[in-house]
């Protein structure tokens, strides 16, 4: 099969648009973060709808105000945050959209959730570096995409029909405010008061929330000393000596020195990824079997 290359050209974007797949797994021992999509659930869903391979690269869009143009035939898919989507200026609520050369797509206001995923038939085809296409500063040429960038894909006049698939995946799952967590290695070093506060109060997502970590607004005054540097993972909750709670996200560094008090489940990490600053979450402790 001859596969011609088409391009998506970014006409407008705010910071925080990147190409992502499931990330760089197995390279942490060289200090390489996993990266990859913040919300794996929405990622898997869109690749499923597009009948793509499970690791096909998508565009992750963290802010409204995105506009792009396609120069070739393809089918695209949208998932994640519910947003105002316009194709050639007209509102559309389809999840799968057929594209002809010259079509423009605009992502406006986010109605719920905080990340829109734009998948494409067979995935975006940027260079694989260290086993992944995920943008990450210093490993890929750029950490984020900007206006004028052209992202390659394989053009296809696929037969897929435009469909409205949200009946099959309600997005209400990310409106959940309970985050399931396991006790981290330093959980038992917390005082009883700390534990009660941690597990019985609500925490607010601060504006310091990015692909590396989400910081919470409320403090947890504590007397746990800093630890010798140890591995951390996406979903690790660190507690600083100043009482700040940091929930590490997909671009998190691979090691850290702050006490590791909780570890989010994968499902909770997806929920958190779709939260915005000022939204609240509550931790619910799970026990190991």
């Amino acid at each position, binding site marked *: 099969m001859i596969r011609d290359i088409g391009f998506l050209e970014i006409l407008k974007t705010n910071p925080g648009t990147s190409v992502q797949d499931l990330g760089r*797994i*197995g*390279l*942490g*021992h*060289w*200090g*390489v*973060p996993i990266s990859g999509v913040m919300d794996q659930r929405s990622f898997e869903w869109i690749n499923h709808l597009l009948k793509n391979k499970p690791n096909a690269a998508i565009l992750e869009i963290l802010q409204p105000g995105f506009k792009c143009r396609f120069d070739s035939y393809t089918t695209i898919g949208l998932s994640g945050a519910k947003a105002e989507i316009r194709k050639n200026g007209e509102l559309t609520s389809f999840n799968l959209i057929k594209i002809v050369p010259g079509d423009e797509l605009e992502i406006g206001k986010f109605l719920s959730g905080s990340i829109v995923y734009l998948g494409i038939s067979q995935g975006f085809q940027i260079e694989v*570096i*260290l086993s992944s296409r995920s943008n990450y*500063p*210093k*490993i*890929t040429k750029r950490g984020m995409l900007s206006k004028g960038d052209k992202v390659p894909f394989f053009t296809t006049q696929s037969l897929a029909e435009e469909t409205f698939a949200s009946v099959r995946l309600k997005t209400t799952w990310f409106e959940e405010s309970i985050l399931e967590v*396991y*006790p*981290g*290695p330093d959980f038992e070093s917390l005082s009883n008061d700390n534990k009660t506060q941690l597990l019985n109060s609500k925490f607010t997502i601060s504006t310091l929330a990015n692909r590396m970590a989400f910081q919470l607004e409320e403090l947890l005054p504590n007397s746990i000393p800093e630890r*010798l*540097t*140890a*591995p951390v*993972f996406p*979903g690790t909750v660190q507690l600083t000596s100043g009482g700040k709670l940091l929930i590490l996200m997909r671009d998190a*560094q*691979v*090691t850290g020195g702050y006490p*590791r008090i909780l*570890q989010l*489940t*994968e499902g909770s990490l997806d929920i958190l990824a779709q939260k915005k600053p000022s939204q609240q979450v509550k931790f619910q402790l799970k026990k*190991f*079997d």
Partner: protein
Amino acid sequence: MRPSLRQIGSNLIELYWDEKPNDLLLQHILSWELAIALQLGTEVLEIRKGFQTLTCMLRSDLNPDSQRRWKALLQSNINALPLPEKVWEIPVCYDQELGKDLNALSKSKSISFEDVINLHTIPIYRIHFFGFLPGFMYLNGLDPALHFPRKSVPDRKIEPGSVAIGGAQTGIYPNESPGGWHVIGKTPTILFDQNENPPVFAKPGERIKFLSISLEEFYCLSKDSKPLKSND
């Protein structure tokens, strides 16, 4: 020096040693890492190291069966293998032009530039693991005379190749990054190359020796930043 085993996530399991980091502990950590790779390697996606920990990210969530296998492995006797002999020589220019914080560190500790350089280039440092940034080596062996608390307000931008001191540690920033360590010099050597496999030249357990070079030599070596000598 048997580690304890703890689960820290649905698919995260950690071996932990309540010991001070030193060569012997590192020998144990590296030997256990090898044993895990050989015996339970098919279950493991990624093994990461810390100073006292070996953490495994597993392909699937732990269940009673896999827990039994991990517990059994922990009961076995692992011989601590000797550490590698290899020493990498890394040229560093300790000039104020490149080591922005050299002056402040020297003044505040009342150690002359010359002595800072001597104290920093005499030891042979042991690489314990990579972390923090891609290709950042955690080194053990900084002379206590050079221990210096991290900056309370981190610098927004530390240049790649910067050689720095933070607390009881010294290290080299492979990439541009914000950072709270005090920069005392700079190396022209590239520490992380994402187009190479592996992207780093050294391995945990091997050693690093810093060689003081002049500003001229620094600019000369910057044109060809790969000359690294090792002792074999």
